[in-house]
């Protein structure tokens, strides 16, 4: 039972590891260059999944202040920085002040926006390189390209 709990409570990590290994295997073992790039994409996505899942908090919402909360003047002076889990000091109007538990951790999202962009950029460059290889060698299979290079040399 404990074991099941252990596994279930961390299922996000299992999934990311499995995805990542699939990607890694494709990157190393596949001979088709496009497949390698697909592997690369899966690999990077797995990492994004991992990062985003760090930032999840049970029962929290997206890290955007609700409109009222944002425009409530009370917030702007009150809500001193509070320590662990004690962020719910009542203010004059009886509404909950900002609580860190209510919002998902924004930082992983920010980081992953960057990682997504990097992934897209790398994939784009990778595809361009494969296209160029296809123009030069007429193939996107690594062994065929290598054979062609050898025959050019010889």
């Amino acid at each position, binding site marked *: 039972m404990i074991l099941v709990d252990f596994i279930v409570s*961390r299922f996000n990590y299992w999934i990311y590891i499995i995805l990542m290994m699939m990607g*890694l295997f494709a990157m*190393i073992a596949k001979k088709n260059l496009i497949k390698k790039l697909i592997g690369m994409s899966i690999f990077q996505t797995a990492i994004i999944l991992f990062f985003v899942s760090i930032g999840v908090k049970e029962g929290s919402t997206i890290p955007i202040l609700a409109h009222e909360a*944002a425009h409530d003047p009370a917030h702007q002076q009150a809500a001193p920085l509070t320590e662990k889990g004690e962020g719910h000091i009542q203010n004059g109007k009886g509404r909950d002040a900002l609580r*860190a538990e209510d919002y998902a951790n924004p930082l992983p999202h920010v980081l992953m*926006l960057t990682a997504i962009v990097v992934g897209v950029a790398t994939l784009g460059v990778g595809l*361009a*390189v494969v296209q160029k290889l296809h*123009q030069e060698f007429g193939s996107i299979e690594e062994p065929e390209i290598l054979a062609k290079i050898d025959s050019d040399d010889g």
Partner: protein
Amino acid sequence: MRALGTIAVILTGALLLYASGDFPAWGEPYSPANDSRVSRHYILKSFEETSVPNMVTAVLADYRSYDTLFETVVIFTAGIAIISILRGPVDKRVRLRRASEKSLRQSNLILAQTCRLLVPVIQMFALYVIAHGHHSPGGGFQGGVIFGASLILVALSFQLQTALDRISEKRAMILAGIGVLIYSGIGLTCVLLGSNFLDYSVLSKVLPLSAIEARSYGILGVETGVAFTVTAIMFAIYANLSSHGRMKGGL
């Protein structure tokens, strides 16, 4: 290669599995990462310090705006990289004649009309996403991608040339450069105004705003820059990849 791949995968996988026993459980609100000083500060203080309700935007374009600047640069680099890779030295670029309106008429009627209807809507939405990044999910990257998609839609439903007539690849690259320049220019303005790079609060010296509002407007400014770059590069990447860098034919 296969054996090598298997070994690498098994080793890495085992290593990662080994560590995952030590991980906090899924959704744990008090895990070290979620409950850290940094994360709490972002959630609790970002509105106070930047007057942007969307914390992701605040962190992205203000606290970590230097990161985001280089993120934009990565995109920009990718565009230039793809052009420089695909354009062979042998491949003399012929100056393409302006495609006539004929190409528009020639294509499928339903396709053409649907596209005509959709593109403005997509673009409107893109602008909304860019501008509303302060208050809702969105921002320069997301909006830029949507805007780029509208251009790609044109290229897909007509011909690449049709889209290129509207925004040529050269112009796209200039647009991309301008986007990065807007971003970094705002940062440089901060330096010139006597503060550190990308410290938007100092913009209040020249704008009729408080230091905190200045941050918010600074963020809007850089998001616009990001949107320019992303739009242009998305289209440039599509144009290059779909035509093998020859800028004609396409899909």
